[in-house]
């Protein structure tokens, strides 16, 4: 469904992705784990089209993504819940969700919003409040819900567990696992490698702009080096 080949990207003169290869097949949950600064967020930003690439190929559902503006990639079914909960702080919770479905104006927008509220009841309670006033965890829920409003075929999630209490991490991971049953393909970028690998089918390990290991989630969880470097056991 999504294929990344030899992807390179730079900030100014400094190259941060040195040729990344990655495949996401339809219906999978694929996770990219790695330390801070490994280039995971840059990878997602390149796939979404908000970060220029300097080499390599990106193909989604058979269509090359190079040169395609970000908003057209969303129309193709590629939605991202960005790192740091980049929500629209000055707009209400409900307006944030409505804008998630910016490309649509049919009855499904309402049912999708009802589903988002069912998934995270706290958002329904605060639907008319400015999103900037939500707590960190609530903003994370809003960012994920907003991305789902775009009816993605493939959802890109950037650090959904960042800064959250363990119980919230578990809740969000449950939600992601449930997406699979809804037919949504997920590419999950996480520093919390253990939480991510537990729900993923396959995983990639990134270090300083390169993929250094890949395999099924079970293989990675069982790997001694991974356990030492990322799982803290």
């Amino acid at each position, binding site marked *: 469904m999504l294929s990344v080949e030899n992807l390179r990207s730079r900030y100014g003169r400094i190259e941060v992705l040195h040729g990344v290869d990655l495949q996401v097949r339809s219906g999978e949950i694929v996770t990219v784990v790695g330390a801070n600064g490994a280039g995971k967020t840059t990878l997602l930003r390149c796939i*979404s089209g908000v970060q220029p690439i300097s080499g390599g190929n990106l193909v989604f559902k058979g269509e090359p993504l190079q040169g395609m503006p970000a908003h057209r990639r969303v129309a193709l079914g590629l939605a991202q819940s960005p790192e740091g909960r980049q929500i629209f702080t000055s*707009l209400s919770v409900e307006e944030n969700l409505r804008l998630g479905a910016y490309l649509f104006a049919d009855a499904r927008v309402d049912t999708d919003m009802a589903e988002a509220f069912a998934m995270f009841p706290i958002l329904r309670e605060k639907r008319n409040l400015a999103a900037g006033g939500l707590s960190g965890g609530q903003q994370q829920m809003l960012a994920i819900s907003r991305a789902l409003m775009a009816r993605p075929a493939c959802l890109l999630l950037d650090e959904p567990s960042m800064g959250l209490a363990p119980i919230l991490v578990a809740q969000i991971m449950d939600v992601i696992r449930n997406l699979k049953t809804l037919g949504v393909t997920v590419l999950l970028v996480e520093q919390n490698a253990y939480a991510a690998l537990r729900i993923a089918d396959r995983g990639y390990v990134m270090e300083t702009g390169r993929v250094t290991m890949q395999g099924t989630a079970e293989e990675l969880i069982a790997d001694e080096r991974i356990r030492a470097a990322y799982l803290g056991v």
Partner: protein
Amino acid sequence: MTELLQYLVSGTTVGAAYALVALGFTIIYNASDVVNFAQGEFVMLGGMVTFFAWQAGVPLPLAALLAIVAAAVIGVLLNKLAIERAGAAPVVSLIIITIGASIFLRGGAQLVFDKQLHRFPGFSGDEPMNVGGVTILPQGLWVVAVAVMVFVLLYVFFTRTLTGKAILATANNRVAAKLVGINTDYMMSLSFALSAAIGALAGILMTPISLTSYDLGVPFALKGFAAAMLGGMGVPVGALVGGLLLGLIEALTAGLVSSTYKDAVAFIVILVVLFWMPQGLFGRKSMERV
């Protein structure tokens, strides 16, 4: 008493025009956090293009429409050729670009048109009406009515339509806006076009009352900016109230103190707002979790 009423009437008229200019500031500010100091040049273009088209034999309503479209096109060009090219430049740089654009447009108007004062007749004649000793120009009623109408339309646009909210989202977080599928370049162009058209409208409406010339943009930009600051930058209702208030204060100063100080009012308002209430009358308190 009649005198005071007269000041109120003329203050409301001028204030409505300031409100329109301030609404123009509001739109671009809402889309991009940029204060567009070329806003006054759109006011100038509205009056000048209408006058020269009208003089060339185009019927007045058509000439006015032509001027609005011309201003909107120039607004879009300003965004495409100057603002968009600047890419990820900080807001201050973008504001400086608009100051440059304003000088360029003023110089261009001086070359393309001329340096004379111009006027065309009011939409409903120039015969003043006398209401209880107070003189009201029919054109003044046009200015106020159009300002209120534009305000209502903008209010509905920004609070009830998805496109309006997409403009707000673009301003609030450009990257997130792209990630939900908003074409942010288009939203910027749209807001420049809207803002320029409203500025031109103000210029067209005011020309029968206060004449137009190539250098009219600076005072209008300054006063529209003061009005927008007074009401609270980025808030449509603030622009309307700020504009009307500024017009009234100006008219009362001219009438009760001295017309010499009339133009100082806008500066004093800017200073007072900056010192004591930087959010303006209706400004949003910025609330953000870090």
